[in-house]
């Protein structure tokens, strides 16, 4: 177990290292950093001074080492637009994105699992077929288009929901979150639903497939033969066994959801880090781009690691394999 964890940590470390190299080469080698980092109005003397100040006259490997040491100290450069450390900028906007992602995942589980359970238990019912047909749409429709339609119908035509922005936030354990105010909920519902759509379809299908697979197995028939109530058979015996793949996929999807929040945040003008990165790309604010990419990659690797750990906790078979 400890050995496995160590192995994974080393692996994660190398992936992060590889990402820093890719991002570094992308930003500092493909584009000319001198053009990007120095305002065009600078005089030649100023130019030379800034070049040596930024270490751009050094060989590439030394620049990379410098970039790494700075990154390790949490210094990923200053935003040209906001003139603030890029890292701070992103961390400021991260709660809004995380909140949206958490809400989307919650929606996915709360909607997807019951619907999937129903569709799995009654595969031939009309409602089940409708659920499955709609879930295909959830996979194949582009998220931004669904978001636009949600805005068009519920915000513009009906006027029920606000079309953009994050509403009032309330404080919870020192964190500002929309979960605490009614206005926050109203603003969060449409973007949350939009972001959740893909995950709802996925959990729904996973749950359904799991139910279909597990129902005919011996232990379920045995539990029934024992005279256990259907609610207990489904709630305990069946549900417990489908939770393993569902938890894995939902966990893994958390990272994807954060990445995909870029789209939802753009549609709903949600002030999270996804909107920040798009704005930054449009004005070529490179330090922010670098910082965002690094943070999301690290976040991703951490999530994958946690999911792997959870997987081991939930599934004894995987535990055995890791031990062997």
């Amino acid at each position: 177990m400890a050995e496995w964890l160590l192995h994974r940590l080393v692996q994660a470390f190398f992936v992060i290292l590889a990402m820093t190299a890719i991002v570094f080469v992308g930003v500092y080698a493909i584009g000319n950093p001198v053009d990007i980092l120095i305002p065009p109005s600078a005089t030649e003397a100023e130019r030379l001074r800034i070049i040596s100040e930024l270490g751009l006259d050094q060989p590439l490997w030394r620049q990379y080492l410098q970039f790494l040491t700075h990154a390790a100290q949490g210094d990923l450069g200053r935003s040209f637009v906001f003139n603030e450390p890029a890292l701070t900028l992103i961390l400021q906007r991260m709660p809004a994105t995380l909140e949206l992602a958490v809400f989307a995942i919650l929606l996915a589980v709360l909607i997807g699992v019951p619907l999937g359970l129903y569709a799995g238990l009654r595969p031939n019912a009309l409602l089940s077929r409708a659920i499955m047909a709609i879930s295909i749409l959830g996979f194949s429709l582009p998220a931004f288009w669904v978001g636009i339609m949600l805005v068009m119908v519920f915000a513009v035509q009906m006027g029920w929901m606000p079309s953009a922005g994050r509403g009032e936030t309330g404080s919870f354990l020192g964190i500002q979150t929309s979960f605490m105010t009614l206005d926050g909920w109203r603003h969060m519902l449409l973007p949350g639903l939009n972001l959740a759509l893909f995950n709802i379809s996925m959990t729904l299908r996973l749950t359904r497939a799991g139910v279909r697979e597990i129902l005919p197995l011996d232990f379920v028939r045995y539990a029934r033969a024992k005279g256990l109530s259907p609610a207990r058979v489904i709630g305990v015996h069946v549900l417990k066994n489908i939770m393993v793949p569902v938890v894995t996929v939902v966990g893994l999807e958390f990272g994807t959801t954060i990445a995909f929040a870029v789209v939802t945040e753009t549609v709903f003008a949600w002030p999270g880090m996804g909107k920040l990165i798009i704005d930054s790309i449009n004005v070529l604010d490179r330090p922010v781009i670098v910082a965002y990419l690094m943070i999301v990659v690290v976040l991703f690797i951490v999530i994958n690691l946690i999911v792997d750990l959870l997987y081991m906790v939930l599934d004894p078979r995987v535990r055995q394999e890791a031990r062997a």
Partner: protein
Amino acid sequence: MTAIADNAAVPADTPLRRFVIDFARSPLALLGLAGVLTVVLLAVFAAWIAPQDPYDLTQLNIMDGRLEPGADAEDGGTYWLGTDAQGRDMLSAILYGLRISLGVGLGSSLIACLIGTSLGLIAAYAGGRTDAAVMRAVDLQLSFPAILVALMILALLGKGIMNVILALVIVEWAYYARTVRAAALVERRREYVEAAECLMLPRRRILFGHLLPNCLPPLIVVGTMQVARAIALEATLSFLGLGVPVTQPSLGLLISNGYQYMLSGKYWISFYPGLALLFTLVSINLVGDQVRDILNPRLRT
């Protein structure tokens, strides 16, 4: 559509006939096929069908800006799907946009398929270190969501059709590589490969002449699905403003351009391009579903 064309390369024509008969069994799939053909024809002949060239500024009349669908133009003629802020006929813009969307989607899928298939075949045939190296790369690639990878590439390289295609290729190649490798690993142990090896045939010929045709079914299934994915991803990137340049707007960019007018009730500028995108994606998916059902006997119940 592509599926049938690809299958024609297989020498025996009996499987092809069986495939066509199986395919025609689902009316929904035929509908999808008709949809795909329509979209492709519209895209190819956009220049002849479209009422105006939406990017020839001399043909635009700014006085006709933001007209509703069905409104009459100042100089006669009707804007069936309305006009955008510059007085551009939306129907024409959609037809031209379709061309770019399909071109980018198909083009990137084709390149990704070539690269992924070659790497997958080589990995399965060579085995050992080569295999491990390719599969590590595939795992690494697939562990990051497509949107993030594409975002990263476009953030580093900037906008442009070529960069979008490059981003889509990098996002997609791994799916092809994984699929082909899995199929090739099974085929590699068959006698015909051994026989070809005994004949001292060149390795290239064994790979592409013997192994590849037998790996085609799963490849076709993945290919159809990936084309739809590529089109959707390109639309998403263009919607975010990172994709194609303003001078060559795809459906995604048209939707994005119209979005700001939607809040004031002028829905058509982004609604109809969206509908076109939707129609394209759903058609391809319907075809893809049926192709998968036919070519993947395990799923047949």
